[in-house]
């Protein structure tokens, strides 16, 4: 039997759909449009998840598989991996898409191992053929693009956040209820608490714009200038270099770079960042890079589409005011 359908895992946190959920779904939709198959998107949570189904329908889900259980209020890797693997084993799936988010990087390998297939992880580009999948995955801290060939069905891929743009494409989004494939009372790994850090700010992986600061800000309090610029955009998150998180100016989770977050926003604004290799590895795939630095020889200017040389303590307030003006009415 031809396997033509595609599965997408719609990641949520705290009952809210994450942007990466729509990225995985849009990837599945594009693949199914080529294969002539259907897209099944899976939602999992404590209760009320079906309310999110129409958004998945609007982004290309023919069917929305809904798994609700009190044990799914927090991320539950064992229930999810078992239930997804059981669903994939039911046949018809040529591929399954996850996000290479923190959750997806935990879940996708578990699902793949249970399904006895390899995983193409953290993929930035791919093509799905009848016999094989070709997937690109940056490695070596972003310095080398590795191209893998995956020969297995279903082909399981996790997508680097930002690699696929969410796209609206209205489909039925018919809800089908799933039941857990293992007894939730018997799971061994328990997430006892999910703690949101730093209030309701946009996450680095979700934000189309990232404003990032480095040592050039001179001290932690001056990050206010970076935060103000991010606030002026209204859709921006704040990032930092390793030097700054190592010094405790910003939380470790804000670090962008080879050993921190790897981000690909539409717009990345580097403020007082020299552009060490370690940092460039985490942001060089941004679509547009702006750099503001007083040293015109700083390596960040080699990758910046638009650079401004000068004193960021003068430039940032002016830029913030100009962005606020430009964004009026948004």
């Amino acid at each position, binding site marked *: 039997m031809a396997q033509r359908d595609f599965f997408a895992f719609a990641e949520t946190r705290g009952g809210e759909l994450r942007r990466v959920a729509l990225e995985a779904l849009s990837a599945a939709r594009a693949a199914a449009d080529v294969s002539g198959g259907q897209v099944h998107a899976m939602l999992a949570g404590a209760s009320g998840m079906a309310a999110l189904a129409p958004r998945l329908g609007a982004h290309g889900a023919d069917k929305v598989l809904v798994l609700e259980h009190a044990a799914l209020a927090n991320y539950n890797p064992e229930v999810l991996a078992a239930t997804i693997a059981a669903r994939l084993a039911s046949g018809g799936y040529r591929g399954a898409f996850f996000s290479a988010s*923190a959750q997806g990087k935990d879940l996708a390998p578990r699902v793949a191992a249970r399904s006895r297939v390899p995983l193409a992880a953290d993929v930035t580009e791919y093509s799905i053929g009848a016999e094989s999948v070709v997937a690109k995955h940056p490695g070596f801290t972003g310095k080398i693009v590795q191209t*893998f060939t995956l020969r297995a069905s279903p082909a399981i891929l996790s997508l680097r956040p930002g690699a696929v743009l969410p796209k609206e494409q209205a489909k039925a989004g018919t809800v089908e209820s799933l039941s857990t494939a293992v007894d939730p009372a018997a799971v061994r790994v328990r997430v006892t*608490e999910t703690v949101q850090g730093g209030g309701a700010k946009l*996450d680095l992986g979700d934000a189309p714009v990232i404003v990032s600061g480095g040592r050039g800000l001179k001290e932690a309090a001056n990050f206010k200038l970076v935060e103000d610029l991010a606030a002026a955009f209204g859709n921006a998150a704040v990032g930092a270099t390793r030097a700054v998180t190592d010094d405790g100016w910003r939380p470790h989770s804000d670090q962008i770079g080879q050993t921190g977050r790897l981000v690909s926003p539409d*717009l990345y604004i580097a403020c007082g960042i020299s552009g060490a290799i370690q940092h460039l590895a985490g942001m060089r795939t941004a679509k547009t890079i702006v750099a503001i630095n007083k040293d015109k020889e700083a390596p960040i200017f080699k990758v910046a589409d638009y650079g401004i040389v000068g004193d960021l303590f003068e430039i940032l307030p002016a830029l913030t005011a*100009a962005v606020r003006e430009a964004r009026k009415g948004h």
Partner: protein
Amino acid sequence: MKIAVCIKRVPDMDVRFRIAASGTGVDESGLKFDISDFDGYAVEAALQIKERDGSGEIVAISLGPDVVQEILRKAMSMGVDRAVQLKHDAPVQDPYAIAGALAAELKDGGYDLVMFGRMSIDTANQSVGPMAAELLGLPCITAISKLEFAGSVVKARRELEGAYELVECALPAVVTIDEGIARPRYPSLKGIMSAKKKPLEVRSAQLGEQRLTLTKMALPPERPAGRIIGEGKDAVPELIRLLKEEAKVL
């Protein structure tokens, strides 16, 4: 506690890599190799558990050609008790096949805790640890930034995007270690001397079929050369114009 730490040999990343003539590897001439960063954190975390308990055994395991013995010796010079090389001379890329070979070695080892780095710093798939856990049928917590024990229960913290999770499971278990847990110690001279006498067993890696293969390695396309558009705050209007009209991001 009997602990296994699975480690990988990787090149130093602070270089400009060249692609080997084969097109599927890096040119290794002049490269320095070491324990992959996160695997080093896992070794350190294991040593600290043993020091805290005042007893236990730590076994380092690495899959690869004979050169991996260098990193196994290094782990033993840090304080690991013994080592196992799962010998395989050709490069292996399929994390599922690697997980299978490791699981075959770990299965009857009687380990209370199996540790991995969160990911290798070179191929960066972040898959082998949780896959090995599934194949072993053990509970698994990945990308741990804080690790504590309450009796035989592992209590861990995992960093998420803009949040964190507190996670628990009972031993035996598999964990993968993020940075921030502990900086790996440097081997002492005494450690280096005693490592030479510690046991290093060599066995053939039981790799199954590889269905994920590396077919090409390439340097990423260069970004167009950077452009400085002006100096000081007078350049702000031009930047706004470019962001609106050229980049279309505002």
